[in-house]
């Protein structure tokens, strides 16, 4: 830097115009090589990519085997995607009767359509609730059958992706009202109610989901009167619902705490009782505030459904594991898990993007 003494009446030295910063080389310089440390990091990252990416592509694409009649014909240096071609339908739908696979397929399509419809904020309201009711009824009819000429299929044959979706969606639908009650109970003025709600929430949040599932599968039969049994799927669904409710309750409590005291006082001065105040004034504002974390916790619940394989249900991950036990197609673990992971990823990634978008929308009013 040359010092310029502005007190002198000399003309300033002519400087070159600044370099345009639009070209790709300038972009590289600005974003990859703008300091010594960044240059080292860039080179290290490029080296890492050069070492890892080509073998992965060679394994997944170049050396991969796409068609084979049996596992033995499928051994090579690359991936055996023929395994997925052979077992993909089993991984998706499990032991559901093979000729009837269109039924779980339709059920999955209905679920996806309903989830997509729920993403549109203009539809939120009574009509969406009616749509969900109709959709769930349709899913139930499709999965159970027994009417309209469809054969009856017992719940132990509901496997794969439909089971994952049922556990996650039904679990959340039932957990939600329970969670609202728990959250209200935790904020209640009545000490006994508050103590019981706090106890339940903290107990459930303090233990792993696995123990709750164990409890449902091992202890629930002991809890019931002699002779009464509950379907295994329903037991898992109950455990799942009770577990999710504790986590949802804490999120909803966050929303309740954010309601300014003045809102409640205003409702009181209008003469509204506790339930009407809660239903008309408090909850609409509190729930709207916590929609993004609610979506996140739905993602968590969706991922958590994979734990049901530990108590012997065959969800998407369970059917992938079951497909691996076929004596003709042994050892294609990586292929099966990559395929399953891709399905989970698609759902979760979409939902997390949606939650981020909602968060941006909701924050629009607050940001400058």
């Amino acid at each position, binding site marked *: 830097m040359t010092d310029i003494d502005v007190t002198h009446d000399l003309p300033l030295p002519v400087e070159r115009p600044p370099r345009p910063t639009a070209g790709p080389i300038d972009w590289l310089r600005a*974003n*990859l090589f*703008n*300091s010594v440390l*960044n240059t080292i*990091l*860039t080179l290290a*990252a*490029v080296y890492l990519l050069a070492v890892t990416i080509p073998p992965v592509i060679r394994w997944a694409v170049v050396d991969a085997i796409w068609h084979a009649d049996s596992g033995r014909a499928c051994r090579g240096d690359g991936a055996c995607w023929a395994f997925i071609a052979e077992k993909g339908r089993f991984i998706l739908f499990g032991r559901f009767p093979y000729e009837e696979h269109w039924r779980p397929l339709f059920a999955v399509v209905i679920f996806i359509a309903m989830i997509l419809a729920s993403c549109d904020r203009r539809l939120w309201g009574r009509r969406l609730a009616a749509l969900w009711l109709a959709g769930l009824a349709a899913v139930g009819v499709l999965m159970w059958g027994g009417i309209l000429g469809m054969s009856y299929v017992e719940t132990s044959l509901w496997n794969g992706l439909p089971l994952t979706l049922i556990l996650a969606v039904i679990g959340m639908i039932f957990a939600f009202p329970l969670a609202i009650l728990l959250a209200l109970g935790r904020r209640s*003025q*009545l*000490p*006994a*109610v508050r103590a*019981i709600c706090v106890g339940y929430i903290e*107990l459930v*949040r*303090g*233990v*792993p*989901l*696995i*123990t709750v599932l*164990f*409890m449902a599968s*091992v*202890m629930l*039969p*002991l*809890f*019931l*009167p*002699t002779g009464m049994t509950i379907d295994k799927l329903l037991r898992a669904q109950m455990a799942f619902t009770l577990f999710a409710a504790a986590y949802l309750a804490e999120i909803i409590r966050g929303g309740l705490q954010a309601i300014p005291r003045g809102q409640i006082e205003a409702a009181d001065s209008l003469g509204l009782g506790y339930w009407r105040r809660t239903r008309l004034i408090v909850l609409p504002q509190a729930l709207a505030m916590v929609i993004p974390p609610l979506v996140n916790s739905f*993602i968590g619940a969706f*991922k*958590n459904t*994979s*734990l049901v*394989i*530990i108590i012997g249900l065959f969800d998407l*991950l369970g059917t992938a*594991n079951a497909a691996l036990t076929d004596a003709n197609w042994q*050892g294609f*673990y*990586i292929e099966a*898990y990559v395929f*399953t*992971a891709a399905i*989970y*990823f698609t759902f*979760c*990634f979409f939902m*997390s993007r949606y939650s981020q978008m909602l968060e941006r929308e909701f924050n629009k009013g607050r940001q400058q």
Partner: protein
Amino acid sequence: MATDTATAASRPNRSLRWNDPRIRSVVWQILFVGIVVALVAFLVHNTLVNLRRQNIASGFGFLDREAAFGIGESLIAYSPADTYARAFLVGLLNTLYVSALGIVLATILGTLMGIARLSSNWLIRKLAQVYVEAFRNIPLLLQLFFWWAMLRVSAPAPRQAWELLPGVLVSNRGFVFPVPIADPVHRWMLVALALGIIGAIGFSRWSKRRQALTGTQFPSGRVGIGLIVGPPLLVFLAAGMPLDLDWPELRGFNFVGGSAVSPEFAALLIGLTIYTGSFIAEIVRAGILAVSWGQSEAASALGLRPGQRMRLIVLPQALRVIVPPMTSEYLSITKNSSLAVAIGYPDLVSIANTTMNQTGQAVEGIAMIMAVYLAISLLISLFMNLYNRAVALVER
């Protein structure tokens, strides 16, 4: 009692006592507690009846009986002839061990990735983003199965083991790596290290007091590192560098010597670290972003160097945002370590599960698991709350 009648007397006399909010609240609470107690009593009664019918003795007497099952890996001496109580202890220690390691590693990985997501380097930023998005959106259990399959099935036999670093070998028997052979000098090095740490703490206190009194700074950080690293190094050099490594050797079908980590443990630790690291990365990123840019500018205007700016201005404020969600991530590592049961690492849940299958003591087994996890959760929250209080904003 006397006060009650006094307040009641001062109120207008109501014909309908039901409209008195205090009476209503008591009635509602009695009703609610009654329902809950009735439900619990119903369940307990059924359980007792069912247990009697199945001839299962309740109580924790089974803990003194011989476990009679082997455990693959254990931090303490254990044989199938030991009691169920000792088997539980083995499981508990395994759970604590993998959780503690997972917490440390996930914090390191997550912090690095969180900072990398804010890097000015486009490539680093994008790589960190790919890491976070990929591992956050896939169930942990699936990732555990994947790593287990990679290490157990896809990894080569010990004869063709992959050599990551000299002496660090990966095969389908897990990781093996060299360990130093114990030497009496090493103990003295530990003593020197402890003395050095005490010295460094004392020195930093002295320099802080001096700065408060006189305003002169002292490079206490660099001197402190010297005090911590120096003494053990001096002891090591003075004793003639007694460092013999026990190298793993291939003998027959497996390795002998060195130290080994089973594929199950490695898969669990890798899975927990990478999965939770992706969540911690987002927490760290949000924490740093929460400190407004003006704070950094103000620090620069005061003449602080970038390192000081980060250490004295940005980090203390970011920690306030980071610590509470970080606590729940630590809790979730501990709870998620129970997924070990799915890949065969003998953690608490897995051993309790075996015990329940052998003895039929389902109620006691699950009660013990729950009690242990609740205790761990409580301890971690307590510790993190203390830490949170230390970093929280002190308002006047």
